[in-house]
């Protein structure tokens, strides 16, 4: 992995990034399956400040410089309010307006750019499919938030930061057709794709999906979702990529999440023209599993299911 990163490294000064940045995320260039350093993503909390966002961004640049790596960071702002004006921050009832979300994200990007980065950061602006309404209008609203941050970052000279969308899509949060409408549009609005050209990183779970390997077929997940639905959400649809939750690996009686995602990739390999999923990397929470254990469990499950993947990032989400 270290060799691959060096080969695909981004020259910020020279800025010959278009091809190399795509390749960095391609899941290709498979060399050794050694684990990359842990990148931190964040549940944005009610007490967070713009100063904190800037500090975290700066720390990320320093981390990337010291480890000679690019980074993949998601800011989770929680579920959108039904009117699309903002979000309830994760696992709280505290509300932030879209303008605050945009400003916080831009501050994070500025913090990265202002600390002399020699590498690049992919910054995902994240929401979820939780809430009463997940529809095309809300998707369009979120795409607009992502576009505003991306445009402002470009205007303000943040050339080391790429802005994209992110969504914590989970069966337990709502039915799949609602999520599909959120991304692709429905009678309420045009969806995420109508207002954003950026990628959309799914950092959710596959609640209730099969946990056995070697199936290769479609199956049922929670709340009416199917294996194919999950496949589309993480890879099948054009803008979609994934840092799937690997919070559990059967620990404390919870799901074998590594197996669930491997099975979804295996389904794609055998049933979809896009083939297996090329995951960005696992998302851990440091609860049941350490980042290292989550990586190992995921890498092993993918291997056992015949869908090995040279993942470029190992991410852990935190409120720290």
């Amino acid at each position, binding site marked *: 992995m270290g060799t691959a990163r060096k080969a695909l490294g981004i020259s910020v000064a020279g800025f010959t990034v278009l091809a190399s940045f795509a390749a960095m995320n391609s899941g290709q260039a498979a060399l050794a399956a050694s684990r990359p350093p842990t990148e931190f993503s964040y549940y944005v909390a009610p007490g967070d400040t713009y100063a904190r966002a800037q500090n975290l961004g700066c720390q990320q640049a320093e981390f990337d410089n010291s480890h000679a790596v690019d980074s993949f960071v998601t800011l989770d702002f929680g579920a959108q309010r039904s009117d699309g004006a903002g979000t309830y921050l994760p*696992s709280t009832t505290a509300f932030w307006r879209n303008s605050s979300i945009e400003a916080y994200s831009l501050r994070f990007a500025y913090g990265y750019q202002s600390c002399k980065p020699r590498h690049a950061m992919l910054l995902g602006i994240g929401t979820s499919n939780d809430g009463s309404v997940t529809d095309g209008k809300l998707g369009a609203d979120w795409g607009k938030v992502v576009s505003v941050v991306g445009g402002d970052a470009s205007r303000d000279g*943040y050339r080391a930061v790429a802005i994209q969308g992110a969504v914590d899509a989970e069966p337990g949060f709502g039915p799949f057709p609602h999520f599909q409408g959120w991304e692709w549009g429905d009678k309420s609005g045009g969806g995420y794709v109508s207002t954003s050209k950026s990628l959309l990183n799914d950092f959710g779970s596959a609640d209730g999906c099969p946990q056995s390997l070697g199936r290769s077929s479609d199956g049922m997940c929670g709340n009416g979702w199917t294996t194919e639905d999950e496949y589309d959400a993480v890879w099948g649809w054009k803008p979609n990529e994934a840092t799937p939750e690997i*919070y559990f690996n059967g620990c404390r009686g919870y799901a074998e999440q590594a197996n669930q995602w491997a099975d979804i990739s295996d389904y794609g390999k055998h049933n979809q023209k896009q083939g297996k999923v090329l995951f960005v990397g696992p998302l851990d929470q440091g609860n049941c599993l350490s980042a290292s254990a989550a990586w190992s469990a995921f890498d092993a499950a993918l291997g056992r299911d015949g869908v090995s993947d040279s993942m470029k990032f190992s991410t852990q989400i935190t409120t720290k």
Partner: protein
Amino acid sequence: MKTAIAAGVTVLCVAGVAGVAVGVPSVMAAQRSAPASGAASASAAPAQAGPVSEAGWPASKTAAMASENELRAAAAGKPVVPPTGAGQPGATGTGTEQQAAAVAPGSAYTAGILPLTDGGPFSSAQFVGVNVWNGPVGGRWEVIQAGGAPTNGALGSASPAKAGLFVYTESADPSATSGRQVTGILAPSPDPAGTFTVTKASGGTLTLILSGSGTPYYFDVATGKFTR
């Protein structure tokens, strides 16, 4: 999904039963071919990614990445300047709050019944939410997530559940960085199968409806007890 309760949570009246296996409906393929209902534009139909490129990603995905990089390319050569809009206030409106918003986005609680399933520090393996009530109680901000505890954590939201309430309190100041106190999962005795939904909040009492039955239950917010 956020998991944070691990330790210190009192789970009351939760029983364990075996999970339920589910099958694959035969209509799945037919459902897949249907276009998005009420699609607003040509772009509304979910599009599958195109041929895989040499880099391993479908060309459509690399095109999206290229779009992001076009913005980065446009930034090259421009002076790096701090965000200009970062000082704008958030949801709150008093003069003091607006002043504070120069450094803080300005969090605000939204009291009452909200349609959130993730309104607390738990994962779907620990508790499956339906909706939430929240409001001021005794100088604190109380949050009561209605739903149920899955009887098979490995299935999460796909598991049968025992009805319950996930209860915790926060600081009255929504921007406080600490102060969350988890009470635990509260349930009546005997604990019915299913999930609770908060349908009404009146006079400090929540009216809860049990899924699949319509049977009302009542919960006293101040005492933290089911009253019937």
